[in-house]
């Protein structure tokens, strides 16, 4: 498998010194993938409702700042989508509720590499995820029911704009030897665990007007949960033959 990877992605460089240099280059790239999201409720009634996961496309950019050969800090700015779907019966009518939120996330995963070969580098990562909601929609369909069909935009009245979560996962980096540059291809899988209640303060204060019912009382909390699969493509900040960039010793790019 590793040999195949090497053939696919480039020539394995056997020079140990050069391998160290390759590992310590600051790199930058783009990342795309899918987030399989759901929301967790603490309210006893809501937690027992049938929830489905919602798969959304996500993406962003990252910078990987190697500290040592085995450890990198990799801040990334991501466009994320989260939410949940819930299906339940209300007054005898099937009701489908769906929340899709969009956010910009600043994440700072710490990556711990195991340098298996010069091309193939598995790693684990963990780090904080600071999320700022920029929009989205909440919809509900109840064909034939008194609540009918509704759709509203996400704003301060119906969602906490901020969230803090923990991101943790595993990944594989392939260093591909291109003609003039190296190309880093990373494949990651991660779990994202939100810590802040996503209900808006106005909902908890019963100050928001509900468009589907004439009375509600938010009890309990609602948290983001998601699984993510990402693929990223990046490049180190130098061409072959130029001086290597370091994070820590020689702050060429800082």
């Amino acid at each position, binding site marked *: 498998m590793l040999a195949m990877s090497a053939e696919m992605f480039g020539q394995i460089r056997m020079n140990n010194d050069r391998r160290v240099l390759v590992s310590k280059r*600051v790199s*930058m790239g783009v990342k795309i993938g899918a987030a399989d999201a759901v929301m967790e409720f603490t*309210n*006893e*009634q*809501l937690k*027992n*409702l049938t929830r489905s996961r919602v798969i959304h496309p996500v993406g962003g*950019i990252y*910078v990987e700042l190697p500290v040592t050969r085995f450890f990198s800090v990799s*801040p990334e*700015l991501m466009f994320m989508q989260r939410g949940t779907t*819930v299906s*339940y*019966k*209300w007054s005898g009518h099937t*009701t489908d*509720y769906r929340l899709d939120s969009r*956010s*910009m996330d*600043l994440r700072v995963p710490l990556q711990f590499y195991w340098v298996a070969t010069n091309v193939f580098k598995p790693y684990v990562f963990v780090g904080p995820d600071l999320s*700022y*909601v*920029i*929009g989205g929609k*909440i*919809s*509900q369909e109840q064909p034939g029911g008194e609540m009918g069909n*509704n*759709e*509203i*935009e*996400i*704003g*301060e*009245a*119906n969602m906490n*704009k901020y969230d803090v979560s923990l991101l943790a996962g595993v990944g594989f980096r392939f260093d591909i030897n291109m003609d003039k540059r190296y190309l880093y291809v990373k494949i990651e899988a991660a779990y994202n665990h939100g810590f802040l209640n996503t209900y*808006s303060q*106005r*909902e908890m204060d*019963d*100050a*928001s*007007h*509900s*468009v*589907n*019912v*004439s*009375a*509600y*009382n*938010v*009890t309990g909390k609602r948290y983001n949960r998601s699984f993510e699969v990402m693929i990223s493509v990046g490049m180190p900040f130098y061409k072959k033959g130029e001086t290597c960039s370091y994070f820590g010793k020689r702050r060429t*790019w*800082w």
Partner: protein
Amino acid sequence: MKNIRLFVILFATAFILGSCTKNDDTTLTLLGSEGYVVNYDKYLHDILSAIPSSQVNAFKEKLRLYEGNIPPKVEGEYVVAPKNRVASNVAASNWLLNVHEPNVYLKFSDQHNRVASMIHYEEFITEIDTVYLRGSGERFVAYYIEDKEIEYGMYKVNIKRGVIYSGRISDEGIKYLQYASVIMDVENNSHGFIDTYPVGSYFIYEDGSYEGLAERKEWYND
């Protein structure tokens, strides 16, 4: 340094975009199988507590106090005509029954989360910021407590009273509309002007038309 700047610029852009999202006051509530419970019934309990315990059951038999946590939308303007006296616990000589009183005009607005604003126009206009609601389906009960000043010539008496409305919302208006006034407290009654209506007195009215219908009718001009 350029990279940090780029990140800062991108994040600032995202923050600005986020600030531009729609910012109205609506939400879409995810309900459980039974809805939520809001403990507003305390105020209704306070009103009923003012009635002598031996007479509470008689009061409840005459005024329909529907239950439920999700009342219907009651927003709208209504006219109670004719307004009939139907029951009371004061002596009949002091409050004759089966009397038609002048029409009553009601307006419910800004309803959300079992509360609404209300305007009650009878002899003069009374604006109530918070009317509490309960009920389910088309049936509702609305109630509030108010302090009221009653003039008797050059004297004034202050009372606290609870007011309860009950009915069923329909396209035509509020069917089987009833409403009750309960005296909860009396002050400055040294001249004894309302001795005949002590604390705990209640007065129940209803719309005297077919099916007790308080018709929808726009009557309020800002």
